[in-house]
């Protein structure tokens, strides 16, 4: 890395700066959202075609917020709850309140190889 930096030309520096700026934004978004939603409201981040964290264990009555941090739209589809979100573009989110205890598997309605699980424990 040091070697790379020593030969870095202007273009690369610009790219690195942009990358650093992008990374900062990506990290800040969920933090801000979590604060706004309150500490007890769990968030699932969608990054690189992956739901995280999964499985996510919550208490009944909690609202889960999914935030899309990919450059590609994603959606949430939970067949057992007949729950279907709108397509979330980059940095858009979707929230759902889970009242009943149980294990709820969901997928991305656009990329069904993406799987996630919410466990509601009373």
């Amino acid at each position, binding site marked *: 890395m040091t070697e790379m930096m020593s030969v870095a030309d202007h*273009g690369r520096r610009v790219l690195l700066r*942009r990358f650093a700026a*992008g990374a900062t934004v990506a990290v800040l978004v969920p933090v801000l959202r979590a604060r706004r939603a309150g500490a007890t409201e769990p968030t699932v981040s969608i990054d*690189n*075609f*992956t739901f995280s964290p999964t499985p996510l264990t919550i208490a009944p009555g909690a609202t889960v917020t999914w935030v899309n941090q*990919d*450059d*590609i*739209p994603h*959606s949430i589809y939970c*067949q057992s709850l007949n729950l279907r979100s709108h*397509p979330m*573009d*980059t940095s858009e989110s979707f929230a759902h309140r889970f009242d009943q205890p149980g294990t709820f598997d969901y*997928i991305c*309605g*656009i*990329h*069904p*190889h*993406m*799987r996630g699980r919410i466990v509601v424990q009373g």
Partner: protein
Amino acid sequence: MPSEMTIDRRTALRCMSWAGTAMVWTVAGGIPRARLVGCAEAATKSFSFVQISDSHLGFDKPANPHTTDTLQQALAQVRGLPDRPAFMIHTGDISHLSKPAQFDTCQQMMGATGLAAYTVPGEHDILEEDGKSYLNRFGKGAKGDGWYSFDAGGMHFIGLVNVVNLKGNGLGDLGQEQLEWLEDDVADLSASTPIVVMAHVPLWTVYEPWGWGTADGAQALGYLKRFGSVTVLNGHIHQVMQKIEGHVAFHTARSTAFPQPAPGTAKGPGPMAVPAGELGRRLGIARVSLVSTTAPLAILDTPLI
């Protein structure tokens, strides 16, 4: 495979010089078809058509903030072809978010080439109104979720939809109704009719962990087994991949918008940012020519730069 590699260095160089660039891909399920393309080029005023794919109009992220410009570049390349193709096909993900403006822009741009355009939807084209926004514009005369067939240049073309009702197994899906239609559609055709199948998600399994395949694709291909020449044209994975199985040549096209990583080489199949100046080499069009042999159609992929 080694026995098929009959192309020699001289022929390869000739192909390259004809193409004017070392970056031209000449593929049709393998090198022999690349040779056919070279031979066919000099001789043909034969039937040909062009494939574009995955224009993702509306996408504006760093991997390519100018998807309209790169589509324009691809279409300029189509207009510049020495032999005018019969028509154009678009193998899906016309839009990024199924917005009317995104569809309209693409439709106008394709229309400006003066070529008829045949499309199949990608998963990005059916995000709104249960796909009606796509069907109202591109689905005239189509059945079900937008599947159809037509004849041109002595070939039978079939447009399939494998992006609706995606199942939890992660793969594309055609569904029973469409499969039955397909079986019926080809039932009366002579086995010597060349068949061209278009669908967005690859009908063969390219990489299952990323959902790059169609769960019931094998059943569809089963109905086409008796035909002497079947060419399957897909998009979705934003890179050229091809294989040949019996009389069936599978081919995926480049995107006109942004490249995606090779299977398994990244955490996920998202847009891949490439160094400035390199994007055009990762995007492009495919031109398909009918040549009179028993082999599948010849396909020539051309990058934008």
